[in-house]
């Protein structure tokens, strides 16, 4: 019996010729990641457990992104704990205000993840790096602490669901619409404990940013990871970023999948997920009349340059609706700078939007755009749970940057 792409990467990192779904293994890790929410917990555990050495100072990334620049004293204390730890062990990859970006946009951009690698991060959206053909998955702070100390992690080898993509996306349809469509189809636990392997001729037409967005939300279907095959676009993305050898894995032709879904990309409409679960997906034609109070464009899901471009092209020369507060957050310093170079920041400000320094901020109801009772937001983020962006009686509608920008202008959920 053949292995899936994920199983092959896990087998190689466990030093085994073969693994099977359900097998429990210990695997070597190429990178471990934590942020300013989960990092402090890991750091405290590290000391409490009596560890005195990190496994490899060049393979640990600490990214201050959730509540920075610090929103309050408690957040400042949390960042300080991470900063102290990073200095104590002279960590190579500590990203603070000035160099930081939202972790899952930042790490690929900096070349810290490459094809074939195994990565854990104390953040559920660590699954993003599957876009590069890596195995990556979210864990908690204790697993991460063990990773920092030992460079290893335990895994149950996942079974897999294959998504066989055909066709090409229509204009104004993006990776976000694809993943919302898929989650709508299989549900928020449709891939529980499993790999989501994306394959088929449709992959070639998807940009790297589309792939990052799709892999990013594998967790919203309960998946352990989402993963794409490595092609010319992947290699082109890694050129100039990744300065080390990496290995390309392919699924065996006889790999076993629990289910195979064929998805015609050309049939997907702009898609919106209604409150309060990402699975409540509806095509834009079935949305109806939903007035809104706020739009957020950014996050680890949709804060990359092509997301900014999609928003800028729609907002260019127009004004957002006077009742809609529109908050645009480029995900990294590099994306921010590129937005300035291309004139997007001027476009956004002239349209009546605010543009923020990179932060996770409003996505998880931290700061920078909290909702009052009864308010509605169209957001390019990844979760629309009860109270996710503020008051328990507020609502988040998940959508692509194009839908979000069009909605900001219309004052209600609108097609681009």
């Amino acid at each position, binding site marked *: 019996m053949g292995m899936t792409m994920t199983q092959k990467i896990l087998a190689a990192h466990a030093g085994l010729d073969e693994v099977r779904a359900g097998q*429990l293994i210990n695997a070597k890790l190429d990178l471990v990641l934590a942020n300013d*929410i*989960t990092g*402090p*917990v890991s750091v*405290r*555990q590290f000391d*409490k*457990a*009596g*560890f005195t050495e990190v496994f490899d100072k060049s393979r640990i990334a600490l990214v201050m992104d*959730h*509540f920075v620049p610090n*929103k*309050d004293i*408690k*957040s400042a*204390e*949390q960042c300080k704990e991470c900063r102290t730890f990073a200095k104590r062990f002279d960590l190579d990859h500590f990203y603070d205000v000035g160099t930081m970006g939202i972790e899952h946009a930042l790490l690929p951009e900096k070349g810290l993840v490459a094809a074939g690698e195994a990565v854990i*991060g*104390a*953040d*559920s959206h*660590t699954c993003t790096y599957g876009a590069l053909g890596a195995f990556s998955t*979210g*864990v*908690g*702070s*204790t*697993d991460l*602490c*063990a990773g920092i*100390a*030992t460079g290893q992690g*335990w895994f149950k080898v996942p079974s897999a669901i294959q998504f066989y993509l055909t066709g090409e996306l229509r204009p104004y349809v993006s990776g976000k619409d694809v993943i919302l469509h898929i989650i709508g189809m299989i549900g*928020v*636990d449709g891939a*529980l*404990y499993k790999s989501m392997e994306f394959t088929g001729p449709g992959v070639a037409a998807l940009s790297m940013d589309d792939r990052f967005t799709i892999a990013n939300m594998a*967790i919203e279907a*309960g998946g*352990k990871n989402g993963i794409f095959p490595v092609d010319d676009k992947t290699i082109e993305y890694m050129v100039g970023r990744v300065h080390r050898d990496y290995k390309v894995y392919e699924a065996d032709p006889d790999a076993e999948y629990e289910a195979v879904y064929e998805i015609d990309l050309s049939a997907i409409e702009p898609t919106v997920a209604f409150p309060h*679960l990402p699975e409540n997906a509806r095509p834009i034609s079935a949305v109806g009349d939903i007035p809104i109070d706020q739009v957020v464009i950014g996050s680890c899901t949709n804060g990359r340059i092509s997301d900014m471009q999609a928003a800028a092209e729609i907002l260019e020369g127009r004004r957002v609706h006077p009742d809609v507060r529109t908050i645009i957050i480029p995900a990294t310093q590099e994306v921010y700078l590129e937005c300035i170079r291309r004139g997007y920041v001027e476009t956004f400000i002239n349209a009546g939007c605010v543009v923020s320094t990179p932060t996770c901020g409003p996505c*998880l*109801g*931290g700061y920078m755009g*909290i909702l009052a009772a009864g308010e509605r937001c169209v957001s390019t983020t990844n*979760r629309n*749970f*009860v*109270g*996710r962006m503020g008051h*328990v009686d507020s609502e988040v509608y998940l959508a692509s940057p194009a839908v979000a920008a069009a909605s900001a202008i219309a004052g209600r959920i609108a097609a681009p």
Partner: protein
Amino acid sequence: MDVKGKAHKYGNDVDTDVIIPARYLNIADPAELAQHCMEDIDKDFRAKVSKGDVIVAGDNFGCGSSREHAPLVIKESGVGCVIATTFARIFYRNAINIGMPILECPEASRGIDDGDEVEIDFSTGEIRNVTKGETYTAVPFPDFIKRIIDAGGLLNSITR
């Protein structure tokens, strides 16, 4: 009996944002953090929960964020065990890693109602619904995970 208490029943897809909203994730002290446990799904939870009580839920309990604060505040609130049909995978790992007992048991999840008296024996995986006089058996943990639990959590299993 390892656990004896009252059931607090919830539905499917109880997410980590309602278990502990992100607006509190700047709090380091577990006891202070636990004041907000389940706040966005059940604002009376803290007032009604007693030591040894059990949370009973449906599919995909703990979906969403990787925040370990979620099993931590449940443990800190005195809850003796969470029973669900299935758990989201990161929550499952986190609970085991910090020593918060969890059991997968679809029959118990269906059979136990809010307020029922429940007793649990972890060695056998037996869940007794005292109120209804029913008994359910949970899915046993694999040996690999049992070793982590027996060691008192993941870090103890490594350092020992």
